[in-house]
């Protein structure tokens, strides 16, 4: 499996029946592909839709039904549409159960940076600051390193998206949670050793005993 698939599949396990979920562009979008059949998850597109369905069949798209990236989508039975104030009322007001976003950096107390690289790339925060501030649970989907440079760092060098600590970080190597704002390793991906994770991580990680042991056995 490629890293993106590993990440998307693992995040899909966090979703539960009846949840309202917002997926960012990039890896997060792929999470929708791994929701178990029969589980009803409502996907919100922040451009004003709950009930986002898959890409339409050829010749069956509407120019006025798209995801937040402007790509044609469908609407599932039970879908609803609304304006941008309502869309962010849902997001900021804590009505979104889970948001899954991409990341550039996450620091060791769980703060995310994902909206600009000063002097180099300034896409803007779009809905990211509201999503991280307001969603009940924030999950970041991110490759563990970029060109062998750690992205899980002691302190973000890039501008923060929010002061809030994210809830879960899923990479192709590991799953990291942030209880009491401390980066805590909770899972190693199959076949990945603790040493591998530590080598690719700059942040100080809390390692629970069961993973220390797992590592000794590896």
């Amino acid at each position: 499996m490629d890293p993106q698939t590993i990440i998307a599949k693992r995040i899909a396990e966090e979703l539960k029946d009846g949840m309202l979920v917002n997926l960012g562009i990039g890896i997060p979008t792929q999470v929708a592909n791994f929701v178990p059949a029969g589980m009803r998850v409502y996907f919100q597109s922040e451009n004003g839709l709950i009930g986002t369905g898959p890409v339409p069949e050829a010749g069956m798209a509407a120019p006025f039904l798209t995801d937040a990236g402007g790509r044609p989508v469908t609407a599932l039975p039970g879908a609803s549409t609304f304006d941008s104030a309502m869309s962010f009322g849902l997001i900021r007001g804590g009505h979104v159960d889970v948001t899954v976003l991409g990341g550039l950096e996450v620091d060791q107390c769980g703060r995310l940076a994902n909206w600009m690289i000063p002097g180099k790339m300034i896409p803007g925060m779009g809905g990211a600051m509201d999503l991280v501030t307001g969603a009940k649970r924030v999950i970041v989907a991110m490759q563990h390193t970029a060109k062998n440079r750690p992205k899980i760092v002691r302190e973000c060098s890039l501008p923060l998206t929010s002061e809030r600590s994210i809830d879960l970080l899923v990479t192709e190597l590991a799953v990291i949670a942030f209880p009491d704002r401390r980066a805590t390793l909770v899972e190693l991906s199959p076949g990945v050793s603790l040493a591998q994770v530590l080598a690719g991580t700059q942040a100080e990680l809390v390692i629970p005993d069961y993973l220390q042991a797992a590592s000794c056995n590896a």
Partner: protein
Amino acid sequence: MRTIPLQEAVEMIPSGASIMVGGFMGIGTPELIVDELVRQGKGDLTIIANDTASPGVGIGKLVRAGLVRRFIVSHIGLNPETQKMMMDGTIIVDLVPQGTLAERIRAGGCGLGGVLTPTGVGTLAEVGKSKIEVDGKTFLLETALRADFALLHAFISDYVGNLSYALTARNFNPLMAMAATTVIVHADNIVPVGVIAPDHVMTPGPLVDYVVAKG
């Protein structure tokens, strides 16, 4: 509301105007009105919108034609031309979190001075803003936004200006309909008065000044 030929509608807009433009990545943007703005070469504009779409699409046309002095938007990531001009210093781009942008426009339209939002506290978005505590929680005071013109796209208008939008083309359009001095709409369909059910009107007619007449 009165109907107005496209050219005449855009002639009302002076260079230097502040303009809210509906749409999200071009979806729900009044493309025809944007084209006419470009044709008439109205420049030095301040554009308030969610994003700058993609190169050569929707608001992206205004970028490419060099008509914009300043943007107040939440996202320019899908238009490299805007990013380049921002880094060049050719245009000024104020980046605003999307939910904050929606609330600031809504506040402008609803006679509110502003709102308190938790979004942006502890980030670059708080620079220059007042921080206010309510019940021990910190919020940014985000002030109302208004503009000289709003250029909107609707799916249906009737002849008194009641508007209905389709699916995700609604986005910022109904908010902007309340927040500008002069509201100009392009509608895909114009229908007789009384055929849009009252419960399905998303922007009441008295908010709309002009609907662009059918070709």
